[in-house]
């Protein structure tokens, strides 16, 4: 047994409202540069739908993930080492830009530069960011079928629907719908890493984050096609692969990722899992794809087991990480409550971003039929009769096995019903909890984690510097500045990675008194025009609030 630590995420789909705040803040932080226009490290898809890039789940076409050979060994679906060399000069499985979408902007300048007395109303035409030509009819975008818009045209192309062989009526009132936010899965058995000829992609030993070494990437693009989730992108300006970093500069100082931090629905959870690195290949190679969910769970290690703790110590996992693994909301959702499930385990990459399936589509249907959507008897009956949402979710989360999905949804349904009794002062009905194999106490604890979802319960992130305290309250002004001074953002990191920027401050602002003294001593004024009003106490003018005054006058 080789104990390794992994920072993993769980998203509670029941609470996702599809607001795309995670996507937008992620894009502002990481992919707002030239060459990254079309990249969304985080995107939110409406399901059923074709997703981004177009039908990414169709591995017959894209050849992502692993296949199990007849002898029981694993091989990248795109081919082994010989095939990699044979396809070195042109990757046959690489998506084209149109499979994502052609990025565009608008001629905003035309709104300002239009002549004063022009007869015509000034307009901002859409312009392609690749060819510079006007795009008068935009035909596809990163989220074209949002809220099932346009789905009558495309929904049946959804590869998950094709797999379960079900015609879902595309009329909005006759179908079910939910949102699926997606980031890189930071897999235990990443096929993108396996496909990289240069060895530029790697899994970080300390926290399992999968990264691209920008200095060693040579632009072969094998990772792009080999990732079954299509979460590695090719920067067409720098000629290097880029991907979700799990915001490692933030995690290292104990802060949640940008997508988690800004999640309006508070549906994201971050925490540590311990796993047995020696059994990764064994778990990924089980014969029946429907066994992969349990196989992956079997290599996750119980952080309370003394043998595991000893193994972690021997393997160099810090005690603070073992403690974090014990407090981990991820471990609780996957193992204790068994409500979180992996996304497409059949790709055999052992993904580490898991999902709590959404109960809401079922509740909505029950309520729409005029029934009590909070009554456990009605809900549990509905669950066992509504096959379409169940089979669809199983196609997404458990390689088609409906039993784990049903168990998860039954527990969520029981939680609703149980908590309603408590709220109405009727006392907890143990029968409801018992019906889903839980106790009332467990249901209440799960409710606190899933519904109350306090910040410090959702994000249990050990820092790489144990002297830095964890959690929202402890991250005071001085600590932030100290971390900035000690750690920095790392070489070549965009400015957005700096701790002060993450906290809403602009360049040169919101740094410690020490930091401020330093900039003053070096004669560097903060950049004019950039003021963080959130920081401003209002009793004196902030530096940079006004343009530089004429000589000698200083506010």
């Amino acid at each position, binding site marked *: 047994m080789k104990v390794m630590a992994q920072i993993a995420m769980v998203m509670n789909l029941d609470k996702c409202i599809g607001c795309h705040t995670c996507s937008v803040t992620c894009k502002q932080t990481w992919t*707002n*540069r*030239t060459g990254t226009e079309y990249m969304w490290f985080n995107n939110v898809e409406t399901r059923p739908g074709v997703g981004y890039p177009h039908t990414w789940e169709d591995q017959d076409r894209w050849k992502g993930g692993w296949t199990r050979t007849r002898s029981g060994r694993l091989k990248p679906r795109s081919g082994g080492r010989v095939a990699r*060399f044979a396809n*070195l*000069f*042109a*990757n*046959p499985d*690489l*998506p*084209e*830009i149109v499979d994502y979408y052609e990025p565009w902007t608008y001629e905003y300048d035309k709104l300002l530069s239009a002549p004063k007395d022009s007869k015509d109303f000034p307009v901002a035409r859409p312009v*392609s960011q*690749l*060819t*510079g*030509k006007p795009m008068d009819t935009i035909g596809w975008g990163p989220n074209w079928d949002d809220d099932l818009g346009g789905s009558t045209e495309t929904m049946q192309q959804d590869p998950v629907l094709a797999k379960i062989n079900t015609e879902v009526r595309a009329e909005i009132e006759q179908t079910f719908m939910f949102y699926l936010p997606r980031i890189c899965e930071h897999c235990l*058995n*990443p096929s993108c*890493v396996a496909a*990289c*000829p*240069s*060895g530029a*992609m*790697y*899994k*970080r*030993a*300390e926290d399992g984050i999968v990264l691209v070494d*920008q*200095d*060693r*990437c*040579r*632009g072969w*693009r094998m990772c792009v096609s080999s990732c079954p989730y299509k979460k590695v992108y*090719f920067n067409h*300006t*720098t*000629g*290097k692969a880029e991907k979700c970093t799990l915001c490692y500069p933030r995690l290292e100082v104990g802060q949640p990722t940008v997508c988690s931090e800004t999640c309006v629905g508070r549906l994201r959870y971050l925490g540590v899992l311990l796993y047995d690195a020696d059994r*990764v290949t064994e778990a990924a190679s089980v014969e029946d794809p429907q066994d992969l969910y349990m196989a992956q769970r079997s290599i996750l290690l119980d952080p309370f087991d003394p043998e595991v703790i000893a193994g972690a110590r021997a393997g160099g996992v810090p005690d603070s990480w073992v403690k974090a693994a014990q407090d981990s909301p991820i471990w609780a959702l996957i193992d204790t409550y068994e409500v979180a499930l992996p996304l497409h385990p059949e790709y055999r990459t052992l993904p580490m971003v898991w999902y709590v399936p959404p109960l809401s589509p079922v509740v909505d249907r029950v309520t729409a039929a005029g029934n009590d959507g909070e009554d456990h008897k009605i809900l549990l009956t509905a669950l066992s009769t509504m096959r379409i949402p169940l089979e669809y979710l199983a196609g997404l989360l458990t390689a088609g096995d409906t039993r784990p999905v049903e168990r998860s949804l039954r527990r969520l349904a029981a939680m609703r019903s149980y908590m309603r009794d408590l709220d109405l002062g009727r006392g907890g009905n143990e029968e409801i909890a018992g019906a889903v194999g839980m106790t009332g106490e467990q249901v209440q604890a799960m409710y606190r984690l899933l519904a109350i979802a306090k910040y410090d319960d959702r994000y249990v992130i050990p820092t*790489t510097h144990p002297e830095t305290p964890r959690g929202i309250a402890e991250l005071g002004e001085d600590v932030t500045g100290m971390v900035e001074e000690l*750690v920095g953002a*790392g*070489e*070549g*990191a*965009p*400015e*957005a990675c700096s701790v002060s920027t993450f906290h809403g401050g*602009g360049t040169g602002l919101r740094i410690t008194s020490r930091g401020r003294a330093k900039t003053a001593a070096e004669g560097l004024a903060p*950049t*004019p*025009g*950039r003021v963080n009003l959130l920081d401003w106490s209002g009793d004196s003018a902030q530096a940079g609030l006004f*343009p*530089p005054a004429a000589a000698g006058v200083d506010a």
Partner: protein
Amino acid sequence: MTTADVLLWVAYPYICLTLLVGGMVWRWRTDQFGWTTRSSQLYEKPILRAASPTFHLGFLAVIGGHFVGLLVPKTWTAAVGIPQHVYHLTATIGGSVAALATVLGLAGLLYRRFAVRSVTLATTTRDKVMYVLLVLPVALGTWATVANQVLGGPEGYDYRETISPWLRSVLTFSPHPQLMTAVPLSFRLHVLAGFALFAIWPFTRLVHAVTIPVQYPTRPYIVYRARRASVSAAAGRRGWAPVQRSADRDGARSRGA
């Protein structure tokens, strides 16, 4: 032998080789971030799928042929019992096929580069200079082969008596420029163009030729790497370009005012 001969067949090759070797070392040490194929497959796939492997495989074959023809002395092939006419036939047929693949592939790639607008826009001035200096030796080499080896009589031109010894004399630092004075013009131009390509090689995207992933077949599929223990105090190297933000532009404007 004139001064021009010495300049062309001694000074010039050494300048070019110095730029090649020194430039490669310099670029490797200073610009790992710029070391990439800078593929444009994302923009356009069908033509590239056909043209790129054709060109690359053809070009690798051409390089292999040059190694054999230039670096292996004639006496060695004779010693293992290969007569000149057999050598000539093999080299001419193999070379012609490789040249055909190279020329066709390069034509396809060039067509694509200037017919597909997004690819054109991604082409830098440096790329264009590189394309000129790449097309020149390929075209001249093809011409020299066709004119002298294919159409120039049964035995063709025996470059292994002149060009090859001259090149080896350059590489062994005892140059014999007089060997090049009687070489046909097409071959002489090809050699000069080839050295020009060497000279610019390290400063263009052609550096990706030195990235053959030799360790891939033997390494384990999954790579683990530990975080760097400390953050270096050295100045950062080239990386992602900073984002041009409206606030920065405003700042620049107010400073100007």
